[in-house]
């Protein structure tokens, strides 16, 4: 039994002849902020897609808290404790902000269809409970005041925040953030860093994030893995990795 929260063993996937990710080995301890970086097309989002059941790995395995989740469906994986955000925001855009979060929470209430249709007491009880929890969560992200706004009407930065809140609503053990700072200005990025730290401390969360913004990565991550062309280029503590000549070459090109 390993003492890592997430452990991947030679996780690989290929589409036709293209090896999109090859032998990715991640070891993430509980409560860690772990960064996954690399140039465009390095296979970062592909790794996320494997970890959340969107793609089935061609070979290799991954474990959450010692439990093998390889090949499970996206729904199962989410229920076992991995939640994610998306690179191109995928909110439920025609639903209100609070409803977005409530969808994330729906697996936490045991209110059957019959009880819902016939409005049994259990419906009112669970609905009230969920709504309070959802509002508390939105409050953390400063979104409670806009809970009735349609998600698509939120400004961009708040949409990103809402995606994180929605992922947290599923009560995960591990949170995957896919380019959370994309499209943000430096000030918003700084705020986001605070938020991510806060999530880690407040919810006792482990976070794996993909990011291009080096100030964010070096600012909050404990450890890094660098991918390039689907393979692992470097792994280790932030300062070691960022000074690794291979990494510098991958990012800046040869002399």
């Amino acid at each position, binding site marked *: 039994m390993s003492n890592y929260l997430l452990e991947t063993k030679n996780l690989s996937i290929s589409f036709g002849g293209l090896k999109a990710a090859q032998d990715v080995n991640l070891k993430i301890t509980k409560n860690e902020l772990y960064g996954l970086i690399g140039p465009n097309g390095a296979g970062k989002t592909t790794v996320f897609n494997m970890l959340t059941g969107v793609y089935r790995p061609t070979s290799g395995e991954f474990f959450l808290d010692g439990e093998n989740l390889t090949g499970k469906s996206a729904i199962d994986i989410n229920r076992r404790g991995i939640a994610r955000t998306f690179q191109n925001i995928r909110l439920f855009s025609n639903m209100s902000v609070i409803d977005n979060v409530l969808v*994330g929470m729906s697996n936490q209430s045991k209110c059957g269809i019959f009880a819902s249709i016939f409005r049994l007491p259990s*419906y009112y009880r669970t609905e009230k409970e969920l709504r309070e929890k959802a509002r508390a969560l939105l*409050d953390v992200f400063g979104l409670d005041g806009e809970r009735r706004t349609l998600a698509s*009407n939120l400004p961009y930065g708040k949409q990103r925040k809402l995606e994180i809140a929605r992922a947290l609503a599923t009560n995960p053990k591990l949170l995957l953030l896919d380019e959370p700072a994309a499209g943000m200005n430096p000030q918003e990025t700084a705020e986001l860093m605070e938020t991510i730290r806060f999530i880690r401390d407040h919810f006792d969360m482990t976070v794996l994030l993909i990011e291009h913004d080096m100030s964010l990565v070096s600012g909050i991550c404990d450890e890094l893995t660098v991918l390039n062309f689907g393979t692992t280029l470097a792994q280790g503590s932030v300062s070691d990795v960022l000074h690794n000549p291979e990494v510098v070459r991958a990012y800046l090109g040869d002399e």
Partner: protein
Amino acid sequence: MTTPVSAPEKKKFRLKYYINYLLVGAFFLIFLIMDMTMGLRTSSVQLLVKIAYSIILAVSLNMVVGFLGELSLGHAGFMCVGAYIGCFCANYLHKVIPSPLVVLILAMLIGGVVAAVFGFLIGLPTLRLKGDYLAIATLAFGEIVRTVFKNLNAFGGALGLTTKRYDNSLYIIAFLVVLFTLFVTQNLKRSKHGRAIEAIRDNEIAARAMGVNVTYYKLMVFIIAAFFAGVAGVIYGHLVTPVSNTFFSFNYSIEILVMVVLGGMGNVSGSIIAATLLTFINVQLTTQLSGDMAALKYLIYALILIAMVLWNNAPALRDVREKFSLHRLLAFLNRKLHPAAETPDAPEIADWDKIPTKIPMDALLSTDIKPDHTFEADKPEKPSK
């Protein structure tokens, strides 16, 4: 999660939650009073029953099309199953049970449940399909059902199944069923299950990632919609005899779809009004027009479909649409009436009035997320990498 909540949720009486019951109830009561005081002609009763089962069909199809966001072209097929099976059983039950009311209720249950079973059987495999493929598969299902019933001699074959017509009070039961349909669909919509279904419509991949059991909910919507279509079929079978397979053709599925589209996809009140209106017009046209002029009916349907969809969906018309939208009008009135009041909130439950759109694949693949244009000022500059 211990952060204190800023303000407790107030329980308010929301008119919009009950508007549909009021709408149907008032309509029904007017005729009930007319019936009690001066009696209704048989032709009026027939029209009322037709309106009632059209509402049931439109509201239930709206669950699939507007709520779940999938197109079903086989709704008449489920109605067909309900009508044949329910009325077939009713013919036998009449020999055992003297009360026609009890027979009707039992027949509706049987017809509805069998149609729901068909909904399950056809839904289980076909819901793996998406969009156009699902539409074609449901269309195929409807035609298969019709062909099979046409050729089964036990159900009267091509001549149709002879049924026992119910007396003039059928419209009362039909309207009670309408209220029950509204009760089930609206309560389902305003629950965690309803939210999950809407989430699937808005973004299926994200819904999966949030642990929403997509297959389960799709199947559930399909089953419930099929159930009510089956019940509507049984009501039809108690109004019209013989029950003939030709009625349940693909054309009728489209007619129901026209009701849903005219009323606004996802808008229950709209479906009720459109079903009433179209059924009324349809009955009038059929009695007034003869021969080839009957094609006018389909011409009108066609124009409604094209005009409504273009108006609601064409990207080029977006600005015009927003200028004349009902929401804007309401917001305007609200500002005039209460100058000090805060801007109206979007409703707590995401409104159905918005046309549900699955994100088109092309847009998704080619563009990044675009924030709403009204928030241009809040949009951060994209930092260069």
